């Protein structure tokens, strides 16, 4: 404790306040644990195959978590990238085309890196050149990228999509490899985010870009870094999309952009970015989101709602949970920000 002479001493309420802050901080993790427990109960109570279901959770969560972890860097700036799903689709599409015409895995990965990072950089550079908010350019990019990807899929594939031999990325389709890659990627991002000057500056930019500018932090330099990180997440996401399903269709990864937003909020990431941003929000939130959806889907079907209905109700409940999470998180924030 530093200078503990608070403006007005209130040690008792400090404790309550701290307990509340800690409770809010660990709430996402507690929610994940709760959802995990509930999921296991529901699956085993139905005599479903828990091992297969858990593998399903990992399969569903991997791409979301990988892309979302990179995207945290953009969200930290208080910005928003809705084009990440389209980037993932384009990256995977071009990857398939490259491999099919060269049969060279190394070159395929290289091209995917160029596309993933390139799309991201283009978003940030467009924002920089035209001096418009980053999220505006990403909305435009989403349309452009998905149109390009669709065109490539339609003109180069059969009506069903564009396929890659399963042998190319198929070997990566193992839960343990996915867990390992997620761990390495999240740790790498966490290191950059929490233990380097880059992370500190990204967070500060999110907190107040004007003040950051007057502290010598270049918005555009750090926006580019953030987009590069998001681009790397996109590349990883595209590789693991192809490892799980070697066919890309026009609808591949289409929901990723919005899923990321919901997932990281579930994980405790403030929607306005800034210093309270957390890398692990993508990990916790991504899997919480998947577990919530699957659990609700099972429970609703058991209650007699058909799969289509349960899909709709699940979305509504997810939206309500999303709002509740934002409300609880903002309660803490508002309490800290009332005028003095």
């Amino acid at each position, binding site marked *: 404790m530093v200078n503990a002479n608070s403006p007005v001493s209130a040690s008792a309420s400090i404790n*309550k306040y701290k307990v*509340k802050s800690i*409770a*809010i901080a660990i709430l996402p993790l507690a929610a994940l644990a*709760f959802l995990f427990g*509930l999921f296991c*109960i*529901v*699956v085993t*109570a*139905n*005599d*479903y*195959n828990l091992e*297969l*279901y858990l*593998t*399903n959770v990992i*399969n569903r969560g991997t*791409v979301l978590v990988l892309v979302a972890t990179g995207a945290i860097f953009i969200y930290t700036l208080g910005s928003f990238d809705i084009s990440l799903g389209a980037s993932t689709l384009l990256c995977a599409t071009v990857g398939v085309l490259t491999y099919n015409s060269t049969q060279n895995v190394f070159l395929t990965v290289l091209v995917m890196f160029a596309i993933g990072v390139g799309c991201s950089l283009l978003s940030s550079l467009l924002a920089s050149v035209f001096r418009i908010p980053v999220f505006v350019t990403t909305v435009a990019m989403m349309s452009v990228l*998905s*149109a390009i990807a*669709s*065109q490539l899929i*339609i*003109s180069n594939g*059969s*009506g*069903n*999509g564009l*396929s890659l031999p*399963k042998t190319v990325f198929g070997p990566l389709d193992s839960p343990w490899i996915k867990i390992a890659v997620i761990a390495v990627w999240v740790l790498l991002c966490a290191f950059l985010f929490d233990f380097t000057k880059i992370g500190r500056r990204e967070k500060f930019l999110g907190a107040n870009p004007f003040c950051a500018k007057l502290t010598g932090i270049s918005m555009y330099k750090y926006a580019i870094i953030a987009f590069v990180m998001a681009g790397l997440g996109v590349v990883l996401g595209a590789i693991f*999309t192809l490892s*799980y*399903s*070697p*066919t*890309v*269709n*026009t*609808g*591949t*990864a*289409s929901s990723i952009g919005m899923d990321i937003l919901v997932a990281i909020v579930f994980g405790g990431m403030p929607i306005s970015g800034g210093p309270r941003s957390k890398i692990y929000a993508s990990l916790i939130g991504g899997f919480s989101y998947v577990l919530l959806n*699957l*659990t609700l*889907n*099972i*429970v609703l079907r*058991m*209650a007699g709602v*058909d*799969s*289509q209905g*349960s*899909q709709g109700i699940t979305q509504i409940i997810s939206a309500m949970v999303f709002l*509740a999470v934002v*409300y*609880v998180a903002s*309660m803490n924030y508002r309490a800290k920000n009332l005028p003095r």
Partner: protein
Amino acid sequence: MKKFVKVLVIAMCVMAITLTAAVSLAACGKGNTTVKIGVLVADASGAEALAFRNYYENYVEKNYDVDFVYSEEVGSDATKEMAELDKLLAENCKAIISFASCDRPAQIEKCESSKVYYAVATGTLKDEEYAEYKTKEYFVGQVGPSTFTEYNVGLAMGQYYKSLTGDNAIHSVALYVGFPAPEHVARTAGILTGLGMTYSAFGQSLSGMDIVGGIYGQDNGTANLNNIQPGDSGITVTTVLSMAPGAGLDEPLQAMLAGTAPDALLGVGMVSVFMAAQLNQKQIPYADVDAFTAANKTNFESGSMRYLAGKYGSSVGPVFALIMNALNGNVIRDADGNAVSLDQGYMVAKSAEEYATNYAKESGDSPIYNKEVLDTVIGADVTYQQIADLVASK
């Protein structure tokens, strides 16, 4: 702090209720020994999809000891398709009937490695895919219209409109060519050929099934109005509407409705979903490839639908029979020992009366493939020929 406690308490209550409900419901589900068949669906809301579902859940389930577990709709996303298939497998489904076609080879391989029987309904694999997978142990087969059948459906529609004379004669048509999917392109080629038209692609004038390759190779799976060459029938195509990615249906549709109406609109599928209301209102006659449903009955009787080549809910009966036999230990193979591949046609109605007659054949209580019919092809001694004969007879 009070608010925080309030929110926490509410959240905990909601969670506790969910948990209790889940566990109690789960307990109710225990001890159920009914065989579970997973149904993988790309679309869950179209008339055709609903008709199939109605047949499985409200007729077959009542007459056989099976439970159909439906996936969420997977749309055109192979990753979601695979995730939903995985989910069905995790829920201990012993067989999969697939209505999803994003990546069928991946589905077959997954079911093969999971030792779960698998069949393709309403549609068929590409020839090279069938050749690759026909000997797989758990691939039971496919029952649905082949690409050639799809072409013929379009051809019959085109020929019918070309043959109309007198007051009914057609001089201008609009085409709805759907998605860049194989069945839609084949139907489009059929319609154009039936109308006596050709298609310009790669500097050549293509006709018949060749049009399919031309539309795919040159125009990304969506027919281009400029490349349609009218024949000597005097019929011209005035508008081509499509759901190709990025094309946008609404604007050209509104333009068509605002301008001089074509004598008819010929569609390759789901016209009833996307534009039936507008066409009925403007009294533009239209033809479609869809399903014999109550909605289409209304379209025929009080709307302007004049032609329908349709499936019916119980079209998916034979594929169920194949799966049921396999689950009972009778994995039916054709004469060469390969997985079953049966071509299934469409019923056609050209008038409200004809529609009513066909529709009456397929009622909820007594579908075309009712229990009596199905029982003739479900059993330990049922052969390939019996099923093939039955499908051919309907």
